């Protein structure tokens, strides 16, 4: 036992205070006059004994309180024999990511892990975890070997991607609760692609000894994979070669130049086959001219026919939904037709014919049912028939979407349909002769998404805005702002649906956006975003999320959502089906989802293609990670006698707790002794 701050022991001098108060200080009673001592008797001796007896407990408590407080400040600790095998936690982390499906990697990893488990002393505690997609704890720290073995045996290959950075974060969190030393055995194929961007994410705490157990020995086998597939998620005209083509990229990892046969499979039927020369360690593109699919959902796949060492990544799946072009309702102000012309042209050019624009003046929209349309555009139509506006509100609440653009009419009528706020002001940049440009663009917003926007702000920098309405953003998301920070594009969720608001018009009078190429891309992405067409089909990566319902919906009023995973099972329980906000796509294959509003979706899920690169971490990186000084020791960790090391365990918390208890007892005793006794009648 020792003290972290022994100089605080000087405070022990304070122990003299209770000693002085109780033992050294003379009891001085103030003489008290009485009429006569006729009936009194001297009680000195008994009085002294009585006082001492009573105050002895109080003295002991006060003495203990001072002592404990001083000890707490001195921060005592005890040395714990940390080197005892029983005190070391054996942590077995098994990589079950997608790449572990290659060959017998997972089986080998299990065997090695079972061997380590069998070699551990019987009383030593161990814990099993898996690394693949997400970090999972399979058991608590227990010593029962049967349970640990069963947990290891139950590990199945996953489709997720291993990330050593995530492992580092999880172990750092674990070490905050486990004070003792940890022997971490990682059974993995040590993929290079599992390294995080920053090596610091992988660094483990001091009390963790990392023992790397690579299961893939030697150089990685050559592996080809379908790296990516570009295919329409929604198809309205299969005969149109420009819109129904499928483009796939075949990548080779550690491969020589070779010719590969690639097939396009639709609903388990091969409809096209192509030969492609894949360069050494390179990529080749395969294009299938037409995608002839029937109405409804089609489960498609691009597959490399010649097998390799890792056949699981030789195919990439995607879902295509064929339907007639959906109608888009475009409501405009009576005489204004430019906006419909520009928007319709852009939609036709961009959206692969999936949408048909129906233009109507605002005053004629009374009898229209918005639910028959993929989405609705209100072009400067701030005054709507009340019946139509009500129907539109119902439509949005049930999952429909509306794009509102505010033209010059907004200056005369501040109220905006469906939008809580009103127009506060208008900025007429044309009058000043200095049109505004689009200053900030949120490229993560679906309607503005661009993977690599250029220096011209993704094409938005050239757009000149002559007129814009100013309104309170409130709870809406601002996706784009003008150079003077005036919101330009806003998004607000109402019920299940969205309302996207453009604070300028869609014609070329209030801005010159329709004249720029970025307008076509904007209309295309906005149309896809508002119609949710991509949400219902296409392809995703494993471990991505699908939003099942909006966050604002009341849970009590929720309708069940049906999800069927690639194995044909329902991953959501009945309760989750009524309440879950999102679904993690954990398995590769086709997910079938029926949303609350009755719309069906088939979503293809592919593993992250970084898992196809089986190249392991360089040896020096592995040594750096596990620590060069520990590496030698780690090889013999399970068999060699362990050096006796000690760990200081601070007792500060316990001493302070004890001091608190003593303080409470002192208060209770002191109040009992010193309080005014109640007069007995």
């Amino acid at each position, binding site marked *: 036992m020792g003290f972290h701050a022994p100089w605080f022991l000087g405070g022990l001098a304070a122990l003299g205070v209770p000693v002085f108060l109780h033992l050294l200080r003379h009891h001085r009673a103030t*003489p*008290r006059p*009485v009429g*006569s001592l006729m009936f009194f008797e*001297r009680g000195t001796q008994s009085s002294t004994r*009585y006082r001492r007896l009573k105050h002895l407990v109080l003295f002991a408590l006060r003495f203990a309180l001072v002592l404990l407080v001083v000890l707490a400040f001195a921060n005592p600790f005890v040395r714990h024999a940390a080197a005892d095998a029983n005190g070391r936690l054996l942590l077995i982390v098994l990589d079950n990511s997608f790449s572990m499906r290659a060959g017998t990697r997972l089986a080998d990893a299990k065997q090695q892990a079972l061997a380590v488990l069998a070699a551990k002393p019987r009383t030593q505690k161990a814990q099993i975890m898996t690394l693949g997609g997400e970090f999972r704890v399979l058991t608590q720290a227990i010593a029962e070997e049967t349970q640990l073995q069963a947990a290891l045996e139950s590990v199945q290959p996953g489709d997720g991607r291993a990330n050593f950075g995530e492992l580092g974060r999880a172990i750092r969190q674990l070490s905050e609760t486990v004070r003792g030393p940890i022997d971490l055995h990682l059974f993995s194929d040590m993929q290079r692609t599992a390294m995080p961007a920053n090596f610091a994410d992988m660094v483990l705490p001091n009390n963790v000894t990392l023992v790397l157990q690579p299961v893939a020995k030697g150089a990685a086998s050559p592996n080809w994979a379908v790296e990516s597939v570009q295919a329409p998620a929604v198809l309205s005209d299969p005969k149109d070669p420009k819109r129904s083509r499928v483009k796939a990229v075949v990548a080779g990892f550690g491969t020589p130049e070779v010719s590969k046969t690639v097939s396009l499979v639709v609903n388990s039927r091969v409809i096209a086959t192509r030969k492609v020369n894949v360069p050494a360690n390179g990529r080749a593109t395969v294009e299938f001219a037409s995608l002839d699919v029937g109405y409804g959902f089609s489960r498609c796949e691009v597959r490399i026919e010649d097998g390799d060492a890792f056949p699981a990544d030789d195919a990439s799946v995607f879902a295509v939904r064929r339907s007639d072009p959906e109608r888009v309702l475009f409501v405009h102000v009576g005489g204004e037709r430019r906006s419909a012309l520009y928007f319709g042209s852009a939609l036709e050019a961009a959206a692969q014919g999936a949408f048909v624009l129906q233009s109507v003046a605002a005053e004629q929209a009374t009898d229209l049912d918005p639910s028959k349309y993929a989405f609705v555009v209100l072009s400067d139509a701030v005054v709507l028939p009340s019946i139509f506006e009500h129907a539109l509100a119902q439509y949005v609440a049930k999952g429909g979407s509306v794009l509102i653009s505010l033209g010059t009419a907004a200056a005369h009528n501040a109220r905006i349909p469906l939008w809580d706020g009103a127009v506060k002001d208008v900025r007429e940049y044309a009058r000043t002769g200095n049109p505004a440009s689009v200053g900030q663009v949120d490229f993560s917003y679906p309607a503005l998404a661009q993977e690599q926007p250029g220096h011209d702000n993704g094409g938005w920098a050239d757009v000149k805005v002559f007129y814009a309405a100013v309104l309170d953003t409130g709870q809406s998301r601002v996706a784009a702002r003008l150079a003077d920070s005036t919101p330009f594009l806003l998004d607000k969720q109402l019920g299940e649906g969205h309302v996207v608001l453009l604070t300028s018009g869609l014609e070329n009078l209030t801005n010159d956006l329709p004249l720029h190429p970025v307008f076509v891309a904007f209309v295309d992405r906005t149309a896809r975003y508002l119609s949710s067409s991509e949400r219902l089909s296409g392809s995703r990566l494993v471990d991505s999320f699908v939003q099942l319902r909006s966050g604002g919906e009341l849970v009590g009023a929720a309708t069940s959502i049906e999800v069927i995973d690639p194995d044909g099972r329902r991953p959501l329980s009945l309760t989750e089906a009524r309440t879950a906000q999102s679904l993690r796509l954990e398995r590769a294959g086709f997910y079938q989802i029926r949303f609350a509003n009755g719309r069906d979706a088939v979503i293809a899920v592919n593993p992250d293609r970084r898992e196809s690169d089986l190249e392991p971490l360089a040896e020096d990186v592995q040594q750096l990670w596990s620590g060069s000084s520990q590496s030698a020791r780690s090889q013999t960790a399970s068999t060699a006698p362990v050096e006796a090391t000690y760990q200081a365990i601070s007792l500060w918390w316990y001493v302070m707790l004890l001091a608190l208890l003593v303080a409470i007892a002192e208060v209770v005793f002191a109040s009992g002794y010193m309080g005014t006794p109640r007069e007995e009648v």
Partner: protein
Amino acid sequence: MQRFLDPQVLAGISSLDLVAKTVVDGFVAGLHRSPDFGFSQEFAEYRAYTAGDDLRHVDWNLFARTERCYLKRYRGETNSQLTVLLDASNSMQYTSGPPRKMDYACYIAASLFYLAIHNQRDAAGLIVFDDEVREDIRPSTRPGQLARLFAGLEQAEPRALTNFAKPLKHLESFRHRRGIAMVISDFYEDPETIIHTIAPMRFRGNDVVLFHILDPQEVRPVLNGSAILVDLETDHRIEVIPEYTKTTYRAKIDAHVDRLRSLARGAGMDYHLLVTDQPLDRALREYLSLRQAGN
């Protein structure tokens, strides 16, 4: 004068009389029973006429019926004199909170003087004593007597020890008329000694009343811890523990009071315990009502 007379107290006792329980001497007609026959409403006896009797007392109706001459005699009623013997020893200055025992005693004495002189036209006198007789105001009904008595009370500051023998000897020597004698004291003395000292006064036909004045802390003392107590008269000090005051002391003081009460009643004296936290008017009214009822 106002210091001793509380209007509330006077209002409480104004309807009551301080009437002597025994036959007392007096010169003028009053409230008290006289040893002589006199002129009053209360018939006493018939007596045969003898030469020299006052013819005014002859019952002429009887003479008309029987032709015999009888005198009709009535009970005589007289005034009395009230003497208050006030203990002004040091122990009377004890207080656990206002008023002091001395003040309480003075209030009682003043109220009784007022009752006797103002209401009943009885003579009233005062003897203030400790171990000596410090003040002696002879009973009188002269104008200004009440003021004199109050001045005597005013000057009666507690000091010295208590000695009952001296004032009573003084009383024996200088007062020969029977009357009402009221002793106001805290009676910190052996009950037998007190009664033995006071009893001769009763034997001479005086109506003797003992007012025992005690402070609430003297009846039920409270000590939070052991304390050193100082005797106000002797200046002796002793250390006392709270347990003692809660048990033995209470038993002793109760026994003292009971003994004093029983001996006083045995000797034909009135005894009344007054605790200074009692409202004075209530205490006096209670005593006077009881006395009237028992008369």
